[in-house]
């Protein structure tokens, strides 16, 4: 059963975003780590490109920008599992369940809203650090000039933002499905670790194109490339057909993930055994 209006969810999202922004000190830690990571990886790529100008279709500048964008979902949208698990284990979930809204959708609005603030800050930082380290990202439409170039830059930016939002959404529903296994009393953290590390290897630390061919071919059938590869690929190698296809595949995986999260919730809440006394 669905309940709650779009207005409810948008107010929830904006409230939680303001809550995060009210205490910017919260961002300092992840901003520092992110900058450190980007710096080290820019050096790793410099080392890797010492004897080559192009690897698997990527120049060094593309590889660095790829990493800058691909890490944003990890930093911005990588912690839904913990906040949800904490709510569930602390019993805060009792509060959240006794409200007239759809639990899964409401939490999506609230948690994603909060993380958008952080993702935005990291994105801005990443652009600044990237410009400093390797200069502008490669042009969206090399060779084009004037209006055509401006249009494709705008198109790339639009697709990048959409793709990042979809990556956040997919991240949320997959992590929510994992976190809500806390309805069962067993430890569920191991699931999340595996999920997290697969995300890291498949498309975050390194573009999919670098993987051995069999692995790359397998990877595109998993949800992992759509968590970080998709936006990063759009940022460094933009083409309209590919961007459309990536965004479409992200959307398909979101449908699947929403279905999964709802299924876990409805089974889980049915056999709910909140610690009571």
């Amino acid at each position, binding site marked *: 059963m669905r309940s709650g209006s779009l207005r409810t969810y948008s107010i929830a999202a904006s409230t939680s975003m303001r809550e995060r922004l009210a205490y910017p000190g919260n961002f300092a830690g992840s901003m520092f780590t992110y900058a450190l990571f980007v710096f*080290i990886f820019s050096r790793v790529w410099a080392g*890797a490109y010492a004897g080559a100008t192009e690897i698997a279709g990527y120049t060094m500048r593309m590889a660095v920008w790829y990493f800058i964008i691909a890490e944003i979902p990890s930093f911005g949208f990588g912690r839904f599992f913990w906040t949800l698990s904490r709510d569930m284990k602390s019993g805060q979930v009792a509060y959240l369940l006794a409200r007239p809204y759809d639990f899964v959708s409401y939490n999506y609005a609230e948690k994603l809203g909060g993380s958008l603030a952080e993702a935005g800050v990291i994105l801005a930082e990443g652009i600044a650090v990237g410009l400093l380290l390797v200069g502008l990202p490669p042009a969206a439409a090399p060779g084009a000039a004037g209006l055509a170039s401006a249009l494709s830059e705008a198109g790339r930016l639009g697709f990048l933002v959409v793709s990042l939002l979809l990556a956040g959404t997919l991240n949320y529903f997959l992590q929510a499905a994992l976190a809500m296994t806390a309805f069962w009393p067993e430890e569920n953290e191991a699931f999340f670790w595996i999920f997290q590390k697969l995300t890291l290897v498949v498309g975050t630390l390194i573009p999919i194109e670098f993987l051995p061919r069999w692995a790359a071919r397998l990877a595109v059938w998993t949800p992992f490339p759509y968590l970080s590869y998709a936006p990063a690929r759009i940022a460094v190698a933009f083409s309209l057909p590919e961007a459309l296809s990536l965004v479409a595949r992200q959307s398909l995986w979101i449908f699947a993930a929403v279905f999964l999260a709802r299924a876990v919730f409805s089974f889980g809440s049915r056999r709910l055994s909140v610690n009571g006394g």
Partner: protein
Amino acid sequence: MTMGTIRMARPLGRIRAYARFMGAAFAFNLKATLEYRVNFVLQFFGMLLNNAAFAAFWMVLIERTGAVGGYGFSDVMLVWAFVSTSFGLAHIVFGNVRHLGRIVMEGGLDVYLLQPKDVWVNVLSSRTIVSAWGDFAYGFIVLALTSGTDLQRFALFAALAVPGALIFAATFAAAESLAFFMGNSSAVSSALTEFMLSFSLYPEGIYGPGMRWALYSIVPSGFVAFMPLRVFKSLDWGLVPVLCLVAAVYVGLSYGLFRLGLGRYESGNRMDARV
């Protein structure tokens, strides 16, 4: 502040007393660790998984490009092994090393000032970190996978991990000791810690000359990762004492900084400290 100073009257006796004390602290902590077996197993596998993810990254990258920054795949894995084992050892023996700043800020040193043992050693070794055993073991696992079961290599690896652990502990403790001098040093300390750990895990050759100066001084990644790797690969036992000397210098500096800070220590305004 003279409390807790090592009295040098009977140096040998003192050393034996300290060895016994640290042994007792270690045994106590080990027992506590065993209480959290499930937690330990989970953390251990979590760490294996994390390291496996990075191993996969390096395998893929080096497969494409050949050596990066002068390191092949086995070099990167060995660097991880050194860092992991020394880092683990540091946290097993000196488990409080990354809580020192908080303890200072909250006035928690009072307890240790009242006990007849050196404050520095006492604070640092009065806790152990469960997950550190996983880090410690991981290095040996990697070693077995990359270098087989050559006993001499295992011995050299272990001999190099000891100064590495001391340097880790000394650096972290020094960063945490800044709490004596600044109101809240946690941001600076955690930044230094993160620098040290992150820089150690990547090939030495990717850093420029300016960076490398830093990596053999203020952020001594060079002494816990890059230099041990060189010594290990050339099987040069002669450099082990050199590394031990370097470790002694870091420990001495860190200890000095702590004593300097201890002079400014004011018992905290924590309620339970006052009552």
